């Protein structure tokens, strides 16, 4: 009996620990404006970037506006593929859809720039395209390490 209770208690503790870890990973809050500003100041980008409006974001990425509760997207002059796309999505499922759209954008940019500006292709290969809970990041830069350092700092 004592042994059974001990096992049950141990299982409960393990469950609590596991739940705590999972909860922590999905609840990082990012301030998209601050993140965008820090990225631009990081020295990771070589091109001039300009912010675009929500309607242009939906067209450019092919994402439903209902899936995105907040976003900051900065596009380059077109001379490079550099871009900052920061999305806070309605929920994890919406974030998964936006992530898919972001990956599709990488593919279409590769196709567009393959012959137009081949030197840009490595930037697309090194791009940060990932989901963190309800957030999706699409960052194509001249220096991925610098961009990643900014993300890592914000995510703490």
């Amino acid at each position, binding site marked *: 009996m004592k042994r059974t209770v001990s096992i049950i208690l141990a299982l409960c503790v393990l469950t609590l620990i596991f739940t705590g870890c999972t909860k922590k990973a999905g609840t990082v809050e990012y301030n998209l404006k601050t993140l965008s500003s820090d990225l631009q100041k990081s020295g990771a980008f*070589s*091109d*001039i970037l*300009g912010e*675009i*409006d929500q*309607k*242009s974001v939906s067209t*450019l990425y092919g994402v439903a506006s209902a899936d995105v509760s907040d976003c900051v997207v900065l*596009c380059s*002059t*077109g*001379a*490079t593929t550099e871009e900052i796309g920061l999305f806070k999505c309605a929920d994890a499922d919406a974030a998964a859809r936006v992530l898919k759209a972001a990956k599709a954008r990488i593919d279409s940019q590769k196709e*567009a*720039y393959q*012959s*137009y500006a081949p030197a840009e292709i490595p930037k697309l290969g090194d791009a940060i395209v990932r989901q963190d809970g309800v957030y999706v990041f699409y960052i194509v830069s001249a220096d991925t390490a610098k961009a990643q350092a900014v993300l890592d700092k914000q995510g703490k």
Partner: protein
Amino acid sequence: MIMILSLLQQSACSSSISTAKASENQPGASPSADTAAPPASASVPPSASESPEVSKTDVPEKTAADDSYFSDAAFAGNSLVDGFRLFSGLSGCAYYAATSMTVAGASSKAAIKLDNGQMGTIVQALSQKPFGKIYILLGINEIGSNTSAFIDQYGKMLDTIIAAQPNCKIYVMSLTPVSRTKSESSDTYSMSRINEYNTALHKLAADKACYYLDLVSALAGPDGYLPADETTDGVHFAPKTYQKWCAYLKTHYV
């Protein structure tokens, strides 16, 4: 009778002045860096009294129209039109543009998403529904090509668009300026080459009864080049340049 003869004589004199001015505007060799002068703007048209056919193509400056003027407009062309879509602030119109688009590609490259969701060409996109005005910017991606061949292809493209849109005002936008650094480092992307293309485009627009918009005068600085702080590669624009371009279109319409 004497008055009629006098008027005819005046008209003949005006034509010869127009011919002389046109030949003055032919681009010569690019100036060296040491003696660089502003590039000759071959896109400045003769005055109305000297060349009536060309002047009908030019669009005078007016009180600014608001965004609603562009609600039945379509913009077609290359990556600069893509940039215009993103940064000009004009969102109520149709955009059919793609990176590396050329005048040949406008009829052959399925790079545009059509209303039915399928991919098609720019010419197909412009034929989908009636537009009140169509703005076209093409040329910088093929500026290494022979001017005559470019104009020939552009003319054929215009014929197709005009046939599909008989009641539409078509604006042929000139090639845009490049930076001094770009111009002086490249025989291809030089302002003299751009001006050569634009002179030919200007004439083509007149021949096809289209309007011509001089983006060199709209976007170049006082030295005749794209300002250095408005570009990173000498060709593509910072967001503020697109806003300048938009402001120009709002004050130059028919």
